[in-house]
């Protein structure tokens, strides 16, 4: 039987209450999702809201902070981003975030990763936004780094860009090997 998951793309109604009740509302969403049979919860990994959902002026929570909160508020559902743009973080840092989320949830973290697309966001935050071919090259390297860090006690990698160099301990390890 197919399972079903819930992505939360719009946090404005959760965040913008007066007085602030962000964690209370997030708790309600988490409890309803778990009680209603959702098998996974997902957040976007954007720092500016997308135009159809209110655009840059709308409130949006940073994805991995939101997942940390959901980790504390849930017991069963898998948690991840749909999806993390490869340009946002050093990939070894990203792997550490996923491993931390996995440890905090007893093995419920999923890494969702893509080549990034939101050029306006990159300009606003001062991130490089290279051509699509380079972004896919970075994605290939990032998946290699994350997979290497998830599957090995230590991992060394030097990518074609030179700046994407990783040589590090990977602890905590994932509770179990997971798909990306």
């Amino acid at each position, binding site marked *: *039987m*197919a*399972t*079903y*998951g*819930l*992505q*939360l*793309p*719009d946090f404005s*109604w959760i965040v913008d209450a007066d007085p602030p009740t962000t964690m209370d*509302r997030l708790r*309600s*969403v988490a409890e*309803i*999702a778990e009680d*209603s*049979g*959702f*098998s*996974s919860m*997902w957040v976007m990994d954007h720092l500016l809201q997308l135009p*159809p*959902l209110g655009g840059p002026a709308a409130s949006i929570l940073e994805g991995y902070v939101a997942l940390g909160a959901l980790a504390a508020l849930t017991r069963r559902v898998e948690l991840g981003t*749909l999806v993390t743009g490869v340009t946002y973080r050093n990939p070894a840092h990203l792997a550490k975030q996923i491993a931390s989320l996995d440890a905090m949830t007893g093995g419920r973290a999923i890494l969702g990763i893509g080549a990034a697309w939101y050029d306006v966001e990159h300009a606003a935050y001062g991130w490089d936004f290279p051509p699509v071919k380079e972004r896919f090259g970075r994605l290939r390297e990032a998946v290699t780094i994350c997979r290497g860090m998830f599957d090995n006690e230590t991992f060394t990698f030097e990518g074609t860009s030179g700046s994407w160099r990783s040589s590090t301990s990977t602890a905590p390890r994932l509770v179990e090997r997971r798909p990306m």
Partner: protein
Amino acid sequence: MVSLFVSPSEAERDSLRQMVGYDSNSEVRDRMIVATAGEATENLAAIVATGVNELIVNLPMIKSVEPIHEAADVLKAATA
């Protein structure tokens, strides 16, 4: 993943369709279900019938938890 907007109100469904350009943009139509609960269940069940393991939905424009309940009811029926 599909965006899911369920409402018994035709006016609400039409309003959202206009807002997102549903009728003029095939990419939007491919990614979004704007329907009554019964219609949405049929549409999602057809997707499940193709063999997907997990249906992930997002709920655009929600301002309370109630649409999460409604979506869960539709998804339960579609995946039963």
